[in-house]
């Protein structure tokens, strides 16, 4: 995989970025992604099972698109057991809280701190207040979060995975903020690009077929 490649139909440049989701359990992290990727919502969605990650392409302009490789926590955040691998090479993060649960906003702030400690210093972080369809039960004001986001240098958006409000806008805003400079991307990503000055990495799956003939002499 290269950092950018032509997508046949539009002959547009596509830039790959790893995006990680963070936030307390049950704030709607997976629902946001399912809404974004499949434009779907399920009221009784079980905790995340069975999906490693999704990919979705967002057009930025006529000649450029951003392809997000979206990693879900797989529930490993619940008991503070997210592996360092999760943050590794993440170029953008969506930190989600539930606007009806003020504790989830406090938790979101600790995730932002964790990202600043563990992740790439250039990571693009979006703070997202989900469930804004439940405005009557609002416990966190948008002003408060906007102020925090401005101070901390984060994108900020309130969304509803249920109604779909602002979900597309959120990812579009992130896409616009990504550095679309292939050289820079090459430097910064370990994954999906030829990292390191010495030699590209090896592709395990690709070469398996070639080596099935037992004796390779």
């Amino acid at each position, binding site marked *: 995989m290269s950092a950018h490649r032509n997508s046949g139909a539009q002959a547009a440049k596509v830039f790959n970025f790893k995006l990680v989701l963070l936030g307390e359990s049950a704030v709607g992290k997976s629902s946001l992604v399912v809404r974004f990727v499949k434009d779907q919502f399920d009221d009784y969605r079980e905790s995340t099972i069975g*999906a490693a990650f999704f990919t979705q392409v967002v057009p930025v302009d006529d000649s450029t698109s951003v392809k997000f490789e979206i990693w879900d926590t*797989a529930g490993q955040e619940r*008991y503070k057991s997210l592996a*360092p691998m999760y943050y590794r090479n993440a170029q953008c993060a969506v930190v989600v809280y539930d606007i009806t649960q003020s504790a989830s906003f406090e938790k979101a702030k600790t995730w932002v701190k964790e990202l600043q400690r563990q992740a790439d210093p250039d990571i693009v972080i979006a703070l997202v207040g989900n469930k804004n369809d439940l405005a009557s039960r609002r416990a966190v004001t948008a002003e408060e979060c906007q102020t925090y986001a401005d101070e901390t240098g984060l994108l900020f958006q309130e969304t509803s995975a249920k109604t779909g409000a602002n979900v597309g806008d959120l990812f579009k805003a992130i896409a616009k903020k990504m550095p679309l400079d292939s050289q820079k991307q090459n430097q910064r990503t*370990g994954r999906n690009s030829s990292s*390191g000055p010495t030699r590209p990495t090896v592709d395990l799956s690709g070469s398996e077929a070639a080596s099935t003939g037992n004796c390779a002499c």
Partner: protein
Amino acid sequence: MEENYDVIVLGTGLTECVLSGLLSVEGKKVLHIDRNDYYGGESASLNLTQLYRRFRSGADAPESFGRDRDYNVDLIPKFMMANEELVRVLTHTDVTRYLEFKQIDGSFVYRDGRISKVPANEMEAVTSPLIGLFEKRRLKKFLEFIQNWKDDDASTHNGVDLDRMQMIEVFKKFGLETGTQDFLGHAMALYTDDEFLHRPARETYDRLILYVSSVARYGKSPYIYPLYGLGELPQGFARLSAIYGGTYMLDKPVSEILYDDEGKFKGIRSGDEKAYAKQVIGDPSYFPGKVKTVGRVVRAICLLQHPIPNTGDINSVQLIIPQKQVNRKNDIYIACVSASHNVCAKDYYLAIVSTIVETEIPEKEILPGLQLLGPITEKFVSVSDINVPLEDGTKDQVFISKSYDASSHFVSIMEDIRDIYKRVTGDELVLKRRPRQEEEQASMAAGQVS
């Protein structure tokens, strides 16, 4: 955690994480616990803070070493052979998706006071300074024999019966000198002692083929290594397990293992909390009364600011000192990786020197290895017991993994995984290819339409 599970897994070492992942994929409800606040147990890769917590009672690492997060220091040194079974487990489960591998640049062997490259094929063998002129012809004949062998074609057997003859007999049949036997058995078949000579030749044959076919796969050496250290492997399989519903709890002490009246495993207690399951899998450290010590390994993790001398200034190396070269019973292994594998800061190198302990002064035993490294910036020495379970778990439903041995690859770990899998589930492990991410997403999208 107060719930019932199918299986509780204790410790997040590689063996435990692979099993947890495989069982979760099959629909088992798994609770996976580790007393440490990091993944990997004894097969973890640590950052500087964790490393100094473990070896220097929490003292601060020198600032000159660079950033904490640039370090992923393996506790046990291993390289993955490109064609070994663990690679198939990685590709079939699509865990490769989370990982990136690089080749190890070269494999070397110490002989008669010199470091030489291990020939990767018969072409290299006949030009290698390791082998004497007349011996080269014999070695070439032997390597051709190994690679042409077909079980069902007696004309390829040269009168050898791999299952009934000892390896020493096969070597003698080809007239190979002790030095060549040493080189084949230790640098290519990767035996750490000489017991293989008197075992059925088939075992050595399989390992030589593994070596040769692994070299053929990527070229420079038979080995590959994951960027960010070996600790990525357990993390990858833990993620697989979590994706299929496995529950993860790090930093969770296990206060007690609970048994029923018949002595069968019933559950675990952590502080005031309890969790129940029919079976438990765990590493030896969670079951001190149910394991025995069969040996000890001494390992010295060395931080260097230069490549290992006399290896051609390459970034990653395996270097084997065969036992006979230094009058020992067990080989000394050196595994070196560097900043180019994202395991330490720029311009640093990490070399681990290890061997099976034979004396009362283990640190002295690795001296021949340490002396080949040049100046050592910092050194962390540990001696670990190799523990194995006393029983197979059928009686008490407690399935304990073996400690990581001194071997340089993952073959014995994979054997243990297969074995435990069979004892836990009653079935042989059959690797089924999991849908890749693209296929998964496509099938979910298709489901939405219908």
